């Protein structure tokens, strides 16, 4: 089950030229606004006809300019969740959900309306009109409607962008459940690093209409070469972790490949797998093993590369266990510590630096 996209399209001065694969799980199409993300998703959905290229899902070619294949949107069976929900105003929530089911192919397996309502917490909303829903509720209904059309894959175009932080954190768990329970591949467009870090299994970074990097989320997000696309404040590493213990003092202990980290209590059971995101500017480096320090998390690491920017800072990429870490320090400190590839360091991270949104299931 995967999506293959290879397309070229021009409008005016903007040239889009992308080629990527989206395997199972959530593939994030990440980039700033204007990088061509929405154009790619619209082309995949069939709402925009690219100049040339090929798009295939699960081995079914939905577009191939060479073979003159161009399936109409309703034959492609991509469930599309738009940024603006686009619920039908003349139907209530139940009607909107049923609309998805109505045109789904006969005999296609998938969740029932009740199951979807349960998954997305829509039971109490069924009789309401879209005008009487909050932004977060609308988006949940839109996701449910798309799911009920029994799609081959879900497309989500910045589904959280129009929502405030509280509504976002209300929907994120539903998206995680979707990823973990339905096994439906999802192409997820976003320019928010925190969202991508929390949800994505694969990340495709777009810039100026081109793919600049693609691969597993942990690798791509920890790549110091992508600091410009991600933003210097948002740059950081994403590490897979397992919850090992919840301590009485309000801290949760998680095992990562290079040691253990303490975080403020997270609501996952012992043994559950998750990800932690450690921002580069929250990491302090020390050559000697530090003592008498308030920071709880001290991870041994080996410098892999240093990357200088235009400012006084240096991005240090390290190997910690089998994972990567990023630290942003000044060039002066890097020189003072004699940092170079192969040098062993200790990465120091305050527990409270890891914000809750940066921790997600997976």
């Amino acid at each position, binding site marked *: 089950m995967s999506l293959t996209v290879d397309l070229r399209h021009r409008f005016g001065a903007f040239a889009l030229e992308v080629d990527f694969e989206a395997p199972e799980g959530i593939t994030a199409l990440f980039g700033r606004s204007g990088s061509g993300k929405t154009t790619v998703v619209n082309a995949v959905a069939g709402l925009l006809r690219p100049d040339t290229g090929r798009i295939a899902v699960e081995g079914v070619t939905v577009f191939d300019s060479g073979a003159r294949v161009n399936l109409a949107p309703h034959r492609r069976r991509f469930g599309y969740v738009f940024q603006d929900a*686009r619920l039908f105003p003349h139907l209530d929530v139940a009607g909107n959900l049923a609309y998805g089911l109505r045109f789904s192919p006969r005999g296609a397996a998938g969740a029932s309306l009740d199951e979807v309502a349960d998954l997305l917490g829509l039971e109490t909303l069924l009789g309401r009109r879209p005008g*009487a829903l909050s932004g977060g509720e609308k988006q949940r209904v839109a996701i449910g409607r798309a799911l009920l059309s029994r799609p081959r894959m879900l497309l989500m175009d910045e589904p959280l962008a129009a929502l405030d932080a509280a509504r976002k954190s209300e929907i994120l768990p539903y998206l995680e459940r979707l990823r973990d329970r339905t096994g439906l591949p999802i192409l997820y467009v976003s320019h928010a690093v925190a969202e991508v870090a929390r949800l994505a299994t694969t990340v495709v970074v777009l810039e100026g209409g081109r793919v600049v990097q693609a691969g597993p989320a942990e690798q791509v997000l920890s790549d110091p070469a992508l600091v410009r696309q991600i933003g210097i404040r948002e740059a950081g590493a994403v590490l897979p972790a397992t919850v090992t213990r919840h301590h009485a003092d309000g801290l949760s202990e998680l095992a990562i490949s290079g040691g253990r980290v303490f975080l403020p209590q997270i609501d996952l059971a012992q043994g559950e797998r998750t990800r932690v995101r450690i921002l580069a500017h929250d990491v302090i480096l020390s050559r000697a093993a530090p003592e008498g320090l308030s920071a709880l998390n001290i991870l041994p690491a080996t410098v892999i590369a240093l990357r200088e920017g235009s400012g006084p800072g240096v991005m240090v990429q390290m190997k910690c266990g089998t994972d990567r870490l990023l630290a942003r320090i000044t060039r002066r400190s890097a020189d003072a510590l004699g940092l170079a590839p192969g040098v062993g360091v200790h990465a120091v991270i305050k527990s409270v630096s890891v914000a809750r949104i940066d921790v997600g299931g997976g």
Partner: protein
Amino acid sequence: MSWLGPEEWQAVGLSIKVAFWATLLSLPFGVLCAYALARWTFRGKMVLNGLIHLPLILPPVVTGYLLLMAFGRRGPVGEFLEAQLGLVLAFRWTGAVLAAAVMAFPLMVRAIRLGIEAVDVRLEEAAATLGAPAWAVFLTVTLPLILPGIVAGTALAAAKAMGEFGATITFVSNIPGETRTLPSAIYSFLQVPGGEAPALRLVAVSVAVALLALAASEWLARRAARRITGA
């Protein structure tokens, strides 16, 4: 309502019959033309738009005369219809239906077109991504959303059809019981001495019908609009 004489009743009844059929029969074409003008790009779009609006601009008597030339028993279309379908329009109530429909058509198309232009195309895109083929998108999304426009267009067209005079009298004359509609009857009563009283009664009926139609369409349009705002 014995205060209306049999002749007057006949005129009122005929007018309602003519307006009903004129509106009903032109509605599908009205929706189609409005949709074509609002959404499609094709050669001759300007021509179609002009043709539809022509009766609004031309003197009604000219429209009536053109109808007579085309649909009269010796007109090219009239001859064909009589030979193939046995349908005679000239000087029959069926002709009054055609005249009323042609005159009311531009009003109907304008109102529906405005409704279609107000529909958010992105909702139709959403329906397509959910698996709905184009015809289903039209029936399940577009049509319900343009219902207020259709209601408004239908009401306008019906009111216009009720009161059509110039084209009707030119095309199908003023035959009691056959083509003497409400306005023709008022006109006829005013031509004879002592006809003021029945004319005045028919005027009262006209005003009442017009007000009723206006109120009904307002109520329906508001109901439909409430439905689609999703509140």
